[in-house]
């Protein structure tokens, strides 16, 4: 039981990180569920149908997911505003319908035969990706990401290729979501397209918002709270969406950076300051 819960906590941490990485460059994505589905189905196809070992299958699945993200993200990321949110929502629905209609991937009935996902592998993935993200956070690339997120015009004036940086962030997020999908698929050993609903994508974003959008540890906290607490507190399990939604609302009103936040300015923390910001 406890191993079960910890496994799903790991998956949700990975997913929350995948949102975090794309939010680092200022793109809010509602397609992490779709990228998870791509990772799950692609890696499942490689291991169950083609007999590849798990590690290369994961790498290939992450690559495919990142490529899809780059293809769909490129036109939307060149634009300011809410276009990426729209494109990612569209992607979530399109991928689900496509999976339902691909008969070699089981179609609407589902796809099975994967095995070998367990808690140690999930924990290893969390630790590895966590280390990579931590290295990123102390590297110069982090400052480029920050510049793009805080003010893309200034970043462009500094000679940063804003679209490319956004594309990197968005694709990296998709790759991490694909790893989570691989683990999920090989743990459940049978998945259906409806497992990767738009509600999943929405929840994943809210995990991160709850924990704090501007650092690595917020995602861990948010995902852990929202996965583990409902398992042990009956009331929370019954009223999960309401409690969750109310918590997010209160949090955004009074602590817009999330529970854990220490860097002063982030993509989400500008209310009250926005009117003083230049260019508004």
């Amino acid at each position: 039981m406890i191993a079960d819960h910890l496994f799903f906590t790991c998956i949700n941490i990975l997913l929350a990180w995948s949102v975090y990485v794309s939010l680092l460059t200022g793109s809010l994505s509602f397609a992490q569920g779709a990228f998870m589905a791509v990772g799950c189905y692609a890696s499942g196809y490689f291991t169950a149908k083609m007999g590849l070992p798990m590690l290369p299958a994961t790498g290939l699945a992450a690559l495919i997911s990142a490529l899809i993200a780059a293809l769909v993200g490129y036109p939307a990321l060149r634009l300011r505003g809410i276009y990426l949110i729209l494109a990612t929502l569209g992607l979530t629905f399109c991928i689900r319908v496509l999976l339902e209609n691909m008969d070699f991937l089981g179609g609407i009935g589902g796809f099975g035969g994967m095995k070998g996902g367990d808690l140690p592998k999930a924990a290893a993935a969390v630790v590895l990706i966590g280390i990579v993200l931590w290295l990123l956070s102390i590297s110069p690339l982090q400052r480029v990401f920050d510049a793009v997120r805080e003010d893309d015009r200034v970043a462009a004036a500094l000679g940063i290729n804003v679209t490319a940086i956004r594309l990197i962030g968005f694709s990296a997020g998709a790759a991490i979501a694909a790893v989570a999908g691989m683990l999920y698929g090989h743990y459940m050993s049978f998945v259906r397209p409806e497992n990767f609903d738009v509600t999943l994508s929405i929840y994943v974003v809210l995990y991160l918002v709850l924990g704090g959008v501007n650092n690595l540890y917020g995602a861990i906290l948010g995902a852990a709270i929202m996965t583990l607490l409902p398992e042990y507190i009956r009331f929370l399990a019954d009223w999960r969406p309401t409690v969750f939604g109310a918590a997010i609302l209160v949090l955004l009103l009074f602590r817009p950076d999330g529970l854990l936040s220490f860097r002063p300015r982030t993509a989400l923390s500008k209310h009250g300051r926005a009117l003083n910001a230049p260019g508004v």
Partner: protein
Amino acid sequence: MLAGQIVNGLVSGAMYALVAIGFTLIIGVLDKLNFNHPEVFMFGGYVGLVALPHMPVAGAFAMAFLVGGLLGVLTEWMAFRRFVGNDARTTAALSSLALGLILTDLVHKVWGTEPLRLPNLTGWLSESFGLLGVNFLNLQMVLLAITFALMWALHHVIAHTRMGRQIRAVAESSAHASLLGVHVLRVNQAVFFISSGLASIAGLMLALRADTVSPDLGLTFGLKALAVMAIGGMGDMRGAVLAGLGIGVLEALMFHFGLGRLGELTVWAAMIATLLLKPAGLFASGHHGQEQRV
């Protein structure tokens, strides 16, 4: 057969358009996405479920408009008022999303997660008539008529009334409008009231046509209106109407030609294609089309 399908598509398209107009109004005035909008749309059906046994259909429509509008004002208060400025876009989207989660969960708790049947319509509305060998339901015609009447009324309000002028002024620039004496908060509330009321009416119409209400409609049918809005061009009402009708007919044609399994894909694929080729939307004219490029 085909003509019947096209009429069917027009009716769905009219509902898409009503919901999309709400999205586009709020985008136009506040430049923010209201993710509670699809859930208000869904709730309109439940207003009908409660109201229909007690009052005539017209009364239910009035109720739906009123309740939806009040929900819209509530949304503005809880999820948008604190988050001003262009930078708070994401925050406002997230907080309205959280509000939508709560609304859906409350509907689940009160009416259950399964679809419910509406009381059967009786009398003239449940009949149909034949014209040129095609069978039309009276209900469909009434729904179409109501939709176009509402759109005309909205156009009149925006184009010719004092409130409409103020709405257009705030859409142009809220700072300048407020300097000129426009009460921006009132305008925002009015926009939320109107847009959510229309969405709620659309929800009631969908419920009447399908005879059922379901708590999932917000995230399935309602979100599609968001794509319709993007296809039409953000902040552009005419575009929302044309795109809504077009997508409705296109979906009906997909079903007619046996591509029903891909029907769900139509609107989203069309939206992604639009974003690729003409990011400002097919009919965009407003300032949202410009100044979007980095």
